[in-house]
């Protein structure tokens, strides 16, 4: 019923969505394009930071995929400029495995990251999650459902395979923020700011403890979580809805 309707809406929206690739390596760009274009997205390309920024300004894409290692500009700087132009999500591609780079990019305003090399499956999942979140921010989502986990915002109830789960107010708020961003990574800072308020951005121990409690309530095997994935050194990611 309701779920089917939004599904149909999404299909229509997907067709008109534009993705801008800013990546200096032609081969990588070709692979990205050939795996994303068949999904119905319109693809724009750019090989340089400055040109990419100009294209963001001109075309207002719905999503930007940005390589951090560009020849003309520091990728993190590009993120900063894009943020001043549009609220569209930015997905970072990084060859660097260092967590600090990712966090710097996320702090600068990027929305998620993919570490090179990556599979096409991962790429599509990230793009879908980011675009979904962008659409969701335009309308209120009544519910979340993924592999047996069900969150109903209207009645504030959470169930797993039909069994109700009792959450404290903070746990519920934490889960709500995760659900709104399902499939997208949320940094520790971001979560702390949204759940506890800007004054607690560095109180990571609160987050660890409440996240642990939430995991123990939601997961069948908390050490091998199915829904609440830990992105080590960066943050958390909730499984995207089915």
């Amino acid at each position: 019923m309701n779920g089917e309707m939004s599904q149909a809406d999404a299909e229509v929206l997907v067709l008109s969505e534009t993705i801008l690739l800013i990546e200096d390596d032609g081969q990588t760009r070709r692979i990205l394009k050939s795996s994303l274009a068949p999904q119905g997205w319109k693809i724009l390309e750019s090989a340089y930071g400055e040109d990419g920024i100009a294209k963001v300004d001109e075309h207002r894409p719905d999503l930007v995929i940005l390589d951090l290692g560009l020849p003309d500009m520091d990728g993190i700087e590009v993120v900063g400029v894009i943020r001043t132009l549009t609220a569209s999500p930015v997905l970072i591609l990084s060859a660097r495995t260092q967590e600090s780079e990712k966090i710097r990019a996320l702090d600068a305003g990027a929305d998620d990251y993919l570490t090179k090399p990556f599979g096409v499956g991962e790429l599509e999942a990230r793009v879908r999650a980011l675009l979904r979140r962008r659409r969701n921010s335009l309308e209120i989502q009544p519910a979340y459902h993924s592999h047996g986990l069900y969150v109903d915002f209207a009645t504030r109830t959470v169930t797993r395979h039909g069994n109700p789960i009792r959450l404290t107010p903070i746990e519920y708020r934490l889960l709500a923020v995760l659900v709104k961003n399902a499939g997208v990574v949320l940094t520790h800072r971001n979560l702390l700011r949204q759940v506890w308020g800007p004054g607690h951005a560095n109180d990571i121990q609160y987050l660890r403890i409440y996240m642990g409690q939430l995991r123990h309530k939601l997961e069948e095997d908390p050490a091998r979580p199915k829904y609440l994935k830990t992105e080590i050194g960066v943050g958390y990611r909730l499984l995207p809805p089915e």
Partner: protein
Amino acid sequence: MHFPSILLRYGYGLLLVALVTLFVWPLRSIIGAPSILLAYLLGVFLAAYRLGLGPSILAAVLSALAFAFFFAPPIFSFAISDLQNLLGLMVMLTVATVTSGLAGKLREQAAISDRRQRQAVVLYQLTEDFSNSQSVKEAVQLVPRHFRAGFDADAFIVLKTSDDPHEDDVVGQHPNNARFSWDRRISDQFLKGASAKNLSCVDEYGSRQTLLMSAQAPLGVLVTEPGFSPAGFDAEGKSFFANFQKQVTHHLERLKLAEEKQRVQMQIESESIRNSLLSGISHDLRTPLTRILGAASALALKKMTLSEMSKDELTQQIQDEARHMADVMNKVLEMARLAQGDIQPNLEWNDLEEIVGSSIARLEPSLSGWDLRLSMAPNLPLIWVDAVLLQQVLVNLIENVTKYCPVGSSIELSARLLEDGSLIVEVIDQGPGITSAERERIFRKFTRLDSESATTGVGLGLSLCRTIIELHGGELDVRPAQGGGAVFFLIIPTNKVHSELS
């Protein structure tokens, strides 16, 4: 041996004669003049032995006078009527003088041997301290103390440590702490000079600077306090000073050579580390690359004849192997970063459960053949660690099990608190186990138990794991498991326990 001052010694001589006189006076009627003379002779002899030549002669003269005055008739007059007494007195004086001379010489010899012994002790202690020191720098710090013990004067050594002009020469006793003034320029000149001669001079402050030379090059400069001059020493003192210098020079040279040898050895070692790293990496990359090439060329050449199923299999193989190569690359980069030593652990409050969970998630595809069991104690406290590094360690430990233990065997990962509050994480396998000889080796860099096996890995894993755990103030080791297999365990202190929430 301790000698009283000169005046006091003459006083003692006087007292000795008075004592002999008082002792003999009541006996004068019982014993004869010869015995009385012998008593005085004993006194003189004692004086000669203990007090030196001067006091003993004083004692002899006084004894003669006392004998003449108190005992030789006429009593209470210095006149001596008896020829026999006069003769006895002459003999006593002669014997006293001769024994005094002999005793004096004896004493002198004792003093000399005492000084020699002290010098030997100084040289012995110097040698011992130098032998125990590990570096030239350390040895040089010892020189001032031993110099003071040997010569009762201040001195230190200015070193030439390197040919790099930017590196400061080390000073045995920092020049700012030196208790006397000296001219730095002279020692610099000495150390710079290629002259193979032993140089020595007195600078404008009066401090003597002596160049210590090794066979080929200047080692350092001995700077001694103003006024100290070996030229004023007797032969004995001069040779002691020369020996002292020789010892210092010898040991500095030895230590310098040892340091040089160690440096060369380290260079060789790092060269061989580089080589073994390269061969390890190329082995790790060549294996999957061969498989990718094989699968790709099969796909390219036999496109028509291959069934859909085998095409899928080959594509899957290419994907898997490429992913594996990417893993190896990431690991090598990570290890290179760690091996360079620029590890800045990003310490934060972390939940072990999350680190364990993400480690398993990272390994998931390769773990499918193994039975991984988790036993984590409930309510473990948060730990103050770098999550990324600790994850690296856990991934390494679990991956090792999958490399060395048969497929299908079980892996147990357990975590609990020890009695002292620290956290222990154990990875228990059912593999072939690790012998005590292997146990020594596996934590070394670039060691793989079977270097020719098809197992991939550059052998940096365990040594880096240990480095990481030690960075956290913990320990990583292995012990045999009950019923075969090995237990790799790591212990991390939890002393920074968070008190507000736990």
